Every structure is written in C-alpha cells, then in structure tokens.
C-alpha cells in the first residue's frame, strides 16, 4: 500500500511537471537540458532531455495515465499479494516511457524503449500467478522482436550516416539528409516494425488480449499508454518516417487492415476486456493509418484522446453489469423504424457533411488531400451519432432534436480544434514526402477496407458469413502458436441411436449435471450452495467429492485453523469436545468418489502419459463457445442464431477447429455426429469406448470441468432448454475428438493408445475408502470452530428464554402486555439488519420495536419500473411470480414523476447512440478520440473526489408508489397485473402471521426493504436483497404497505382475526447496507395524523443516530478505514459514503460475512446480545402459531435461502479460488452473465476473494455451517421435518444444526441428525444488555 501511495504521489508530481513542460514548450518552444554527450560509432549523442510540443503531449499522456492508474490501484489492489511489486513496475514503466519521449538522443530513446518493454512485462506479470506469468512471457517474447528491430534500425542509421553526425533527436532532419536513402528507408522500416509490435498491429496483435490476465489497472496502463508505440516512434522520429514513403504506405495499409479486422473481431466478442483489446488494436490501426497518410499531428492527438478513453473504459469495466440492470428497468423506448430511419440517417449525413464543409471553408485541412479522409471519418461519426439520437426513442419528445444537434456541434468543434492545433502547435511535424497521388491511393484503399468492414458487419448481423462469425468467436482462444495440431480425427459411422438409449443418456447426463447447482446472472445475484447438488451427502463427503472432481480444497487450511486456535478464536475446550465426539461414522466415511483418479477421463490419462494438453484445449474450446452462445447482448452481433450450443458448435464451431482446437479433419468428424445432443452423447461415449456403467462418472467429470458455464446452462435448462445436455455434448465431443486425434497414428505413441483403450474399457472402481487423517483432523477443527462461535449465542438465548420467556411479549400480544412502542419497524432477516436494529433499539430506549421477516415481505411479483417493458422478479428464486406490479407516481407528484421518466429516457437514448457509434465499423475512431478528452477529466475527478462526483451524478427521485390493485383480468405480458383484494388479504395475513405480528400494532408500522450502493462493481446486486431475487426491496415494502393501508384489505383481515387499528399507518423504507441509512417514504396528511408524522420524524432522527453508530461498528472491520472513523459516527458516515462512491473500491462493505446462525423467535430471545451483524433474525411467536403453519413456512423457505447463503460463504472461505470467483482485479465481465478470470475460461460464479478476505489476505469470513435456533417445541419441528425431504437432507446430513427453545420448559435442545433431541447445557447467569447500552463491541472473530 505504501509503495502504491508513493508511486501515486511521484506520478502526480510528474504529471504536474509534464503539464508545465507542455505549456512551456507551446509558449517558448522546445525545452532542452544536456549533461554532455557520448560518442557512438564516431557519432555524437547528447545525454539529456529534449522536450518539444509532441514530446510534452506524450509525456502528459504517459504521466497522466500512470498517475491515474497508481491512484486507482491504491484501493483497488489493496490485499493483492503483489501490490508493491505492481506499483514499482508501474513506476518503472512510466519512467522508462517518459524517458523514451523526452530523451535528447536516438540511442537514448532506443535504450529506454527496450527498458520500457521490460518494465511493461513486469507490470503484466506482477501478480505472479501462472496466467500472469504466462502473459508476461508472451509480452516479453513479442516485444523482443520489436526491440531487436528498433536496435537494428538504429544500427543501420549509425552505420549509414557520415562520421561525426549528431545523433540528437533535434538534429534528426540533418541525419536523415546526410544518410543514404536506402539506409533511411531500412531504418524507418525497422523502426516501424518496432512500433507495430508495440501497437498490437497485424500480424503481431495476439499479445495484447493475453494481458487480460493482469490486473485491471495494468490493462488500463497498457491500453492507454504503452500500446501507443507506433505513434510515439512516428511522432518522435517523424523526419525519418517522412523520408520513407514506401514505409508510410506499408504502415498505413497495415493500419487500415488492422482497424478493419480487429474492429470486426471486436463485434463478435462477448467478454468486455476482449472487446476492449480488439478495439485498442483497431484504434491503433487507425493511428497507423494517420501516420501512413503523413499526419503525425493527428496521430498524436488520437493517441492522447484514445489513451484517456481506454483508461477510463478499463478502470470502469465493472460498470457493465450496472448498465445491464439499468437497461432492464429503462422506460420502454419507442424506436423509429423503416423509412423514417433511412430519412434520419440521410438527413444526419447531409447535416454532418454541411458542417464539415463549412468548417473546412473557414479552416481548410492543413495536409490535404490526406486530411480529407479524417474529415470524412469525423463527419461519418457525427452522422451516426445524430441519426441514432433521432431514432433512439420518440418518447423523448422535442428534446431529441436538441440532443441531435450536439454531435454536429461537436464535429465543428473537433475540426476547428484539430485544425488550429495542427497550425499553431504541431506545425513542427511537417508533411511527408509521400506524393499526393500515393496519399489519395492510400486514402482510397483505407476507405475501401472500411467499406468492406462495414459490409461484413452488416452481413453478419443478418445471419450470413458464418465463417466470419466462427473466426470472431475463436479469436478469444490463445494464440495459434501454442495450438499445434494434436493429430487427425477420422469420421466414424454409427447405427441409429435407439430411443431407450438416448433417453437413458439424457437422464444420466441430467444426473451428472445436477452435481453443479444453477447460478443466476450477476445482474440478479442470488446466493446458492455450491455443493447443493451433493446435499444427499454430508458436507465433508461433498467437499471431498468436489475435491476429487474439481480439485477444490475440502476444508479450512490446517495452518489457519491452528493459528486461530493459538489466537483463541477456536476454544481449546471446543477442540477437546470435538475430538472426543470424533464424528459419526456417516460423516467421516466417504467412498471411491473422493479419489481423484476415479474421476479421470481419457483426456486426463492422455495428458499424463503423453504430456499433451487435451483437457485444457477441450475446456477452452467449450468455454469460448459458451460465452458466444449464451451472450445476453454484450457482443454487438449478439449470440449466433443457429439454435442451441450443440447445434451451433457442431455447425459453426466446426469451421476453423482444425487450427483452433488442433484436430485435423475435425469438420468431417463432427459432421458424422448426430444432430441431437442426447444421441450425440450416446455415440460419443460409444466411440470413446466407455462402458455403460462408466457413463455417469465420465459425464459428472465433464460437467465439473466447467462448473461455471454448466451452472449457467443449468439455469437456462430450468427455463425449458436443453442447455446442460448440450454443454455436456460439446465438452465431451471436444475431448473425444482430441483424444482420438492424440491416439491416431499421427498422434502419440502406440503404447499410450493401448493404455488409453484399456483405461476407458475398465469398470468403475467401487471399493470404499476412509477419509485421510488430515481430513478427520479437519473435521475436528471445523466442529471446534463452530461450537466456539455458537456457544455465546446459545447461552444468550438460554438466558433470555429463562428470564424473559419464549413467546412474544407485546402490548395486546399473546403472552401478556408490555409498554406499547411508538413504531414498529420490520427489517429483512439479512444479518446486516441486526446491527442497525440493535442500535435503533438502544437509541430509542424502548420507543421502537423491531421485527424480522423475509425482505420480499411475502409478496412475490415482477416489478415494472416506470414505463418499463421488462422487469425484475422481486421474490426468492424458490418462487415464480405470477403477478406484475408497476411503480407509479404518488398522487400530487405526477409532473415530477413524468419529468424524472423523461430524464431517464434522454439518458438511455444518449447511451444507445454512443453505444451504437462505438460498435459501428467506421465511427469508433473519432468517437474515442473526442470522448477521451472528456473522459480523462472525468476519470481524474472520480478518483480524486469520488463522493463529490457521485453527488453530481445523482438525479432526484420522484415520490413513487407501487400499484397493487388488480381485478385479476388485466395482464402485463404473461403475468396478471396486480392482485385482487382477496389475494391481498391472503398475502397480508400470511406475512403478519408468519412474523408473529397479530396484535399490539403501533401507530406507525415501517416495512424496511434493503439495498446497497456501490460503484463500478460487477457484484453490486450481491449486496442487494437475496429474498428479492438480488434486487432492492423497497418496492416489496411499498407493495405490502399499500395492501395493509387499503381499507378493503383491512376489512378482510379483520374478518380473519387480524385487527389493524384505523390509526395505524404502514409506510415503506429502504435500508442501504453500504451507507447505514434508512430512507422512509413520506406520510401525507391525508394518510396519517400529525402525531404519526411526528413519530416518523423522531424515528428518522433516531435512525440517523443509529446509522452513525452502525457505521462506526462497521468501520472497525473495514480495511483502510481511518482511525477517526472507528470512533466518530460523523466521520464513519463520511467514510462509508466514500467507499460506496469510489470506483476503485473492491470492498464497499462486508455483505453477509460472518453469518453463522438463524434465529426464529421473538426478539426478546436475542435483544440482549450483540450479535455482531452475523445472525439472521426472523420474528416468530410460537404462541400465535399453535399448529406450526408459520414455522413450516419459515423452515422451508427463509431457512433454506439462509442455508444457501451460508453454504456459499462457507465454500468460498474454504477455497476462494475454487468455489469463489477469485480476485476481482482480473475479472472480465462476459456475456452480461458473469465474470471470467483473465482473457477467457470458465465462468466464475459465487463470491470474489475480496468478499471473504481482507486487504492482508486474511479470511474475514469464518467457514461455519448454519445453526438454526427456533422457538418451538421439538415435536412440532419433528412433524414438519418428517414432511419435507429437503429438510431431512439438510438436517440429517449435517448441513444445518437445529436447536429448539421450547415455550413449555424454556430449555434448549439440539437435534443430533438421527432424529434424537439432546438437552443443551443449562444457561449461565449472564447480565442482560440494558436498553441504553449501545457500546460497540468488535467481534472477537475479526478483531486484530
């Protein structure tokens, strides 16, 4: 961290110096310093700096991007093992590059050029993991070729120039003049090669996408600064380039070709960083074209603009998911289609041409005719933007015409600015010696290439040119250099597949796939148990089997456990108890499934015997096609419309597979396979030689090779597709093809082939084995840790049960009376609510009663944002909404509401237009350049003043309510619009009874949903409400509030024994878990009395105070929080707000870290304890639920969801990289579904490393299985459990530990998994927390 901060300071100072130099060089001419000279081959080379305007501009870019990257990395890389190494590498790379652009001599430039390459590879490899090291090696190898070319070019010039010639950069024109033309051309050509390598131009472009293995800030530095090599050399050595016309033509042509080819690849890529990488190559192609046309000044401006643009895009690459969420809730646009669209395009084009012509009349292009091409490109960009703004959404109204003028004004401004800069500032960059006719020819060729790219783009969008489509998908694979052919696959005929065989294969495949649980896309993050497919086993068995199938860790690291024991985080007494218990045999025993080799397939064996990479190739092949086919709109071309994954791959993927997969004859081999995936699996398994009894094992292993993509395929399959089956077929086919190719005569040795044949034909092993000693020891640690953590909670509950009772004590409640609260606040059961509840209760001294309930408040529906067509499912994934509810204006605020909707329409229309222009074949180049200057400033502001920037961006929200009323006949899409009164009564009653709130209603009842505020965070929805499907819960709260306030519903409830007093007002609120704030909707004078509004005002004040205390408590656990924030609520509030707004922050909050228990009972059972924000709290009153109906609801829904969350944290803490998604800093958002790590690979579901570990890498989440404590009689629980297989699995196999606290004898009893209840130890005497005691106690588990 310290090194990163120092680097940031140094680079900021350098940036300020660069700006000063820029100003100085513009006003006073070149700035030069010299400390003498050296002699080289009889020539004189000065030692010092020479900074003219181009050099100063480049220096500003390099230091600016460097400072931005360093400042961003301070927080973004906090906790990365190599943050210091990264900072040093960045400092080295920026310093070397700065010396390249400022060096006074040619040899100095070459020397620092080489050094900058070394530093860049150090930046790429700084993380030190295998992918980063591999990428760094690729960079080093590729750069070496370019560096050698540059050194050779210098040697040619030195040898060719007459003795005594000055090698100063300022004297380069003289050197060129005195050197023979052949040497000049050769030197220029070699320098151009060096530049093209650094700028990732064809055919040496493949190194750039590979650098996605590095951290995101590293990518920003590369794409914004380093990659401008072609432009840097051309600008600094322009006299040399200008005298080599042939080189210019070659550079220009290659640039145009790269711009077209890379741009085309970009439109087919579904991963954000892959798209950016292709885009960078294309942009550098455009820059090279500018150089080729003899326009180094324009190239320089493009380099600076694009650099700032790409730095901003990379650093903000996590925002893609947020935009996806915003798109879902956007007001449905009314597009302009058909003829009007063509008219809009024609009109926009005409307007852009007129503007360009007018500006050109005032300020003619400096370097005609070449400049005309750039003027045309700028006009085309303006035309695309203008036309898209016009057609984006007719409902924007007249303002769209005003918006459409902006690109035209920008065009005029751009042309004028460039014209003036080229005349006044960059006039030292003289035009080239390229004859005018060559310039025209080159411009014509570039225009033709651009037109061809445009035609290809249009054809692919129409579903044609499958070969191009397949090529774009395969461009995501590693460089072909590493893909030597494994061998040849010979087609094999097969008899028709019997219906029984294919049906059997389908079911076996389904069983194999079910070992992977479905996961939801990141725009609606839902926690799931990564081992949920194995819940018929004990956790130990499931982890062991996963370890064998996937190579994941099976338990908490032994060293960590021992350290925790030494630190007292694991109680010695608990260890003794756990060791004595030693676990029932069922938990310890495992079977052959825990043996790694038992899960091997032929691919694993071939790899081991022959040293091939069959398994990795098959994985990569399958993964890139999954990304393409499952894409939800990231690629400009969308997903291929050729059916499912299997049919797409079999037909489209077969093209180019010989090179991409490395199997000769693949296309013919694939063509011989059945078109149905289930039949293909039968044929493939037979072709591979696996006997029937091996099918499940082979398919299970296949499913678990890519568990991330399989989990997404499983989700799609649940919605009625065959996706899991198809994914298995593709992965199996890729491996079978590779193995067949490997064992073919032109593949590996015959002995290997024989061994493989014997291996596949062998029956599966079946002998059971025991867990190894280390695993048995791990079980002891696991139980000891759990008991250590559980004991204080159980003691607190026992004391409360003994002293206060087990039933609800409320005014008018079932167990007597208590002082009536002024308000009741219902919170989600989420563990994060406990902290704020506790502080609110303490601040309010009894005025506020708090309750817990599932955050969807028992109202499952699809929410339609204002005027939105799509919607979000606001319910747990255990439910499917059948009703749709829309957000509408609160009466009296219609105009405000409509204005807010129009503002959103304008924002979306502008976003659509920019997005379309960025994906176009022609317009991205000028767009990037112009937008870059603005985005550069924005990036600086976002980094330096995140809160200020976030406040500027926040738009005021209009008062909104949810319309719940419906008559059961209106529809919104396939759902019923609204709920009937009868349905509302049913839902309201269920909610109230389940939370035990059946009497004693306060005058004010607040239903508090929850959400979170984070920035640039792909996992944003992971902090939202899981019970609301990964969405904010405010709309659910508003829905239930509207129902409970409705007179007819209250009448209905009264008829069912629930009497809400007429004076009681129900209102909705939103708890922001990142900010610790609660915003409560207004109570209008019509809705509530002055007394109620006064209560609301007092409640808001207390919530603010409680929020400050909660922030202090959280700040003590948040890494990087200043010490003042750990004491002072005001500073804590400011600190958490900064985290929420900071786009470089990787830990905006801790989410549900620490969760380990679920308590269903009256608040009195837990009110005296500080539960540290780690316990799910569900209100429940056993006295109000004599038949256990409400308890059954709680055990079969909220407890199940809590167990998923708990198991996800458990698994991610045990293996953050295996079960979690690894480090955020290398995440690459793909297909708008999830993230992959680096350039390609498996989808990474679940929590990131930064979600469970702190900045030192220490686990913040302790891997603890869920304990459920319910206020109920054991026999009531027995009855419920006996009715539900799921509960039997979860309880019986040890995924959940169940404890009851009986309302009869107030004793605690624990279920032992065999159906027997055991008494818990008698409660100790523990003083209860007084009402006014809100002293913050740092959880022992995380205290440092």
């Amino acid at each position, binding site marked *: 961290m310290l090194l990163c901060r120092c680097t940031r300071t140094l680079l900021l100072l350098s940036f300020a110096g660069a700006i000063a130099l820029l100003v100085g060089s513009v006003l006073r001419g070149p700035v030069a310093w010299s400390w003498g000279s050296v002699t080289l081959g009889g020539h004189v080379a000065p030692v010092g700096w020479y900074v003219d305007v181009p050099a100063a501009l480049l220096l500003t870019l390099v230091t600016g991007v460097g400072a931005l990257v360093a400042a961003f990395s301070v927080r973004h890389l906090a906790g990365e093992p190599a943050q210091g190494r990264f900072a040093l590498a960045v400092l080295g790379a920026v310093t070397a590059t700065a010396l390249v652009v400022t060096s006074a001599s040619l040899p100095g430039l070459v020397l620092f050029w080489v050094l900058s390459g070394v530093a860049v590879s150090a930046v790429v490899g700084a993380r030190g993991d295998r992918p980063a090291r591999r990428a760094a090696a690729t960079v080093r190898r590729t750069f070496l070729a370019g560096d050698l070319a540059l050194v050779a070019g210098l040697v040619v010039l030195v040898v060719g120039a007459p003795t005594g010639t000055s090698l100063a950069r300022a004297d380069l024109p003289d050197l060129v003049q005195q050197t023979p033309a052949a040497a000049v051309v050769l030197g220029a050509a070699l320098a151009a090669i060096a530049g093209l390598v650094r700028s990732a131009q064809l055919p040496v472009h493949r190194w750039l996408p590979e650098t996605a293995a590095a951290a995101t800030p590293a990518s920003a530095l590369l794409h914004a600064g380093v990659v401008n090599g072609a432009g840097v050399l051309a600008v600094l050595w322009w006299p040399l380039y200008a005298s080599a016309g042939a080189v210019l033509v070659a550079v220009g042509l290659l640039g145009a070709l790269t711009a077209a080819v890379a741009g085309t690849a970009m439109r087919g890529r579904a991963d954000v960083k892959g798209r950016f990488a292709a885009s960078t190559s294309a942009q550098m192609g455009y820059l090279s074209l500018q150089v080729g046309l003899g326009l180094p000044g324009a190239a320089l401006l493009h380099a600076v603009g694009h650099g700032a643009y790409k730095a901003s895009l990379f650093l903000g690459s996590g925002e893609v998911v947020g935009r996806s969420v915003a798109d879902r809730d956007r007001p449905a646009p009314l597009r302009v289609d058909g003829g009007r669209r063509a008219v809009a395009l024609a009109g926009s084009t005409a307007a852009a041409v007129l503007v360009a012509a007018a500006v050109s009349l005032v300020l003619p292009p400096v370097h005609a005719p070449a400049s005309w091409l750039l003027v045309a490109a700028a006009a085309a960009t303006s035309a695309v933007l203008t036309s898209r703004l016009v057609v984006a959404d007719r409902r924007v109204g007249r303002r769209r015409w005003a918006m459409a003028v902006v690109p035209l004004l920008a065009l005029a401004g751009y042309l004028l600015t460039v014209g003036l800069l080229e005349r006044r500032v960059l006039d030292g960059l003289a035009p080239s010696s390229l004859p005018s006719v060559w310039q025209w020819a080159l411009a014509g060729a570039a225009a033709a290439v651009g037109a061809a790219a445009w035609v290809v783009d249009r054809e692919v969008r129409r579903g044609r040119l499958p070969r191009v489509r397949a090529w774009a998908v395969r461009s995501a694979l590693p460089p072909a250099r590493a893909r030597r052919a494994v061998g040849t696959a010979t087609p094999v005929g097969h008899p028709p597949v019997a219906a029984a065989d294919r049906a059997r294969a389908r079911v076996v495949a389904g*069983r194999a796939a079910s070992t992977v649980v479905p996961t939801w896309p990141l725009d609606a993050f839902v926690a799931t148990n990564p081992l949920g497919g194995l819940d018929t086993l004990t956790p130990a068995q499931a982890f062991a089997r996963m370890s064998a199938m996937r190579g994941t860790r099976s338990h908490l690291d032994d060293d960590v456990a021992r350290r925790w024991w030494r630190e007292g985080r694991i109680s010695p007494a608990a260890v003794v108890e756990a060791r004595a218990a030693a676990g029932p045999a069922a938990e310890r025993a495992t079977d052959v499934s825990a043996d790694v080799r038992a899960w091997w397939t032929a691919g694993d064996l071939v790899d081991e015997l022959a040293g091939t990479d069959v398994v990795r190739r098959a994985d990569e092949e399958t993964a890139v096609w999954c990304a393409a086919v499952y894409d939800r709109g990231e690629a400009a071309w969308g997903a291929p419309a050729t059916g499912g994954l299997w049919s797409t791959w079999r037909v489209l993927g077969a093209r180019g597979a010989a090179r991409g997969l490395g199997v000769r004859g693949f296309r013919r081999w694939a063509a011989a396979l059945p078109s149905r995936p289930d039949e293909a699996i039968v044929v493939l398994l037979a072709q591979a030689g696996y006997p029937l009894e091996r099918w499940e094992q082979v398919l299970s292993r296949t499913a678990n090779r890519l568990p991330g993509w399989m989990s997404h395929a499983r989700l799609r399959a649940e919605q009625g597709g065959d996706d899991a089956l198809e994914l298995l077929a593709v992965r199996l086919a890729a491996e079978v093809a590779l193995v067949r190719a490997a064992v073919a005569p032109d593949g590996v040795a015959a002995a290997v082939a024989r061994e493989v044949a014997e291996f596949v034909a062998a029956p599966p092993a079946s002998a059971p084995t025991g867990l190894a000693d280390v695993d048995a020891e791990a079980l002891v640690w696991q139980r000891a840790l759990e008991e250590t953590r559980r004991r204080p909670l159980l003691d607190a509950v026992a004391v409360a049960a003994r002293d206060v009772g087990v039933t609800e004590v409320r005014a008018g409640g079932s167990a007597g009376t208590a002082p009536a609260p002024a308000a009741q606040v219902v919170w989600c059961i989420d563990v994060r609510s406990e902290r704020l509840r506790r502080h609110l209760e303490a601040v309010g001294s009894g005025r506020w009663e708090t309750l817990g309930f599932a955050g969807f408040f028992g109202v499952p529906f699809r929410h339609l944002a204002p005027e939105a067509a799509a919607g979000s499912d606001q319910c747990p994934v255990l439910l499917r909404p059948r009703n749709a509810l829309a957000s509408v204006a609160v009466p009296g605020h219609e105009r405000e509401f409509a204005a807010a909707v129009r503002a959103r329409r304008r924002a979306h229309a502008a976003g659509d237009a920019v997005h379309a222009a960025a994906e176009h074949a022609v317009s991205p180049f000028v767009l990037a350049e112009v937008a870059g200057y603005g985005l550069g400033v924005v990036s600086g502001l976002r980094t330096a003043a995140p809160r200020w920037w976030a406040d500027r961006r926040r738009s005021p929200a209009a008062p909104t309510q949810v319309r719940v009323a419906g008559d059961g006949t209106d529809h919104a899409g396939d759902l019923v619009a609204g709920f009937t009164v009868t349905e509302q009564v049913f839902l309201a009653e269920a909610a109230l009874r389940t939370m035990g709130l059946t009497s004693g209603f306060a005058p004010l009842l607040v239903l508090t949903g929850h959400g979170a505020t984070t920035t640039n965070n792909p996992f944003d929805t992971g902090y939202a409400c899981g019970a609301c499907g990964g969405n904010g819960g405010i709309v659910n709260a508003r829905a239930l509030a509207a129902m409970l306030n409705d007179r007819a519903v209250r009448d209905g409830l009264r008829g069912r024994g629930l009497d809400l007093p007429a004076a009681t007002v129900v209102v909705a609120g939103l708890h922001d878990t990142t900010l610790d704030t609660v915003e409560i909707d207004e109570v209008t004078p019509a809705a509530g009395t002055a007394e109620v509004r006064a209560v609301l005002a007092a409640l808001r004040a207390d919530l603010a105070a409680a929020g400050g205390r909660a922030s202090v408590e959280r700040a003590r656990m948040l890494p990087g929080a200043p010490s003042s924030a750990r004491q002072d609520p005001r500073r804590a509030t400011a600190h958490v707000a900064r985290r929420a707004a900071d786009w470089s922050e990787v830990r905006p909050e801790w989410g549900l870290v620490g969760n380990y228990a679920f308590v269903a009972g009256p608040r009195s059972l837990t009110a005296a304890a500080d539960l540290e924000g780690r316990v799910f709290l569900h209100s429940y009153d056993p006295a109000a639920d004599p038949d256990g109906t409400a308890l059954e609801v709680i055990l079969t829904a909220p407890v199940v969801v809590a167990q998923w969350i708990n198991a996800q944290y458990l698994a991610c803490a045990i293996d953050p990289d295996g079960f979690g998604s690894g480090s955020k800093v290398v995440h690459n958002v793909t297909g708008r579904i999830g993230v992959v790590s680096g350039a390609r690979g498996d989808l990474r579901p679940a929590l990131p490393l930064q979600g469970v570990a702190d900045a030192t890498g220490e686990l913040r989440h302790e891997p603890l299985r869920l304990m459920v404590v319910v206020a109920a009689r054991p026999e009531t629980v027995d009855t419920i459990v006996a009715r539900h297989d799921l509960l039997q699995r979860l309880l019986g196999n040890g995924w959940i530990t169940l404890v009851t606290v009986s309302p009869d004898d107030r004793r605690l009893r624990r279920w032992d998994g065999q159906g027997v209840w055991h008494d818990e130890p008698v409660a100790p005497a523990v003083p209860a927390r007084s009402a006014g005691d809100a002293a913050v106690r740092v959880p022992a588990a995380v205290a440092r």
Partner: protein
Amino acid sequence: MEQAGLTRMIKVEVVIEAEEAADVEALLRSEGVTGWTGLTGLTGVGHGGRHEGRLLFNERGGQTMLVAVLPRDRLDGVVAGLTELFRDRHGVMFVSETWVSRPAYFS
C-alpha cells in the same frame, strides 16, 4: 372402444419431487410427447412417508404429478428414461392403456 370412435393410447403418470419436474418435462419433450398435464402441491402418503401440499414460499418443495398421453411407439424412450431417473430419485410412474377421442392432439 374403437366402435365408439376412440383411439388406443398409453397414459403415463409420474409423481416426482417438484424440483425434478423440469427434467421429466425435458425427457417428454425430447421423446416427442406433445403435451401433458401437471398437478402441483400433491398431498398424500407413500414410500417416503407423508407429503404435504403446496408450500407458501417455496414452489420447489413438495411433489408434482405429470400426466402424459402418447402413442405406443414413443413409450420406450419415456419408460427407459424414467426408469433411469428413479434409480436414485424419489417418485413413481404408472403406465396404462387409455382411449382418447382426439388422437391428433397426442401425436
């Protein structure tokens, strides 16, 4: 029956856990079965003990019955698939002859 204008078909009734219903539906679809009827939230007593009806907040719990009618030539795949499914899952299937008045609906 034939005299009454009815056509002989096969009726397959499957009782399975609700979370398995999607897999069975996929099997039916893949074997060319064009329609079926689903009954959710079953209540009853069977091999696994008593089962209750629909849960309030969890549609994935409980049991579901799917009733499909199909021509004889599509039975092999369906039965083979279900037999394989029941190797490790709860559930039963009933296969019987039935007669339908609109055979085109089932083929």
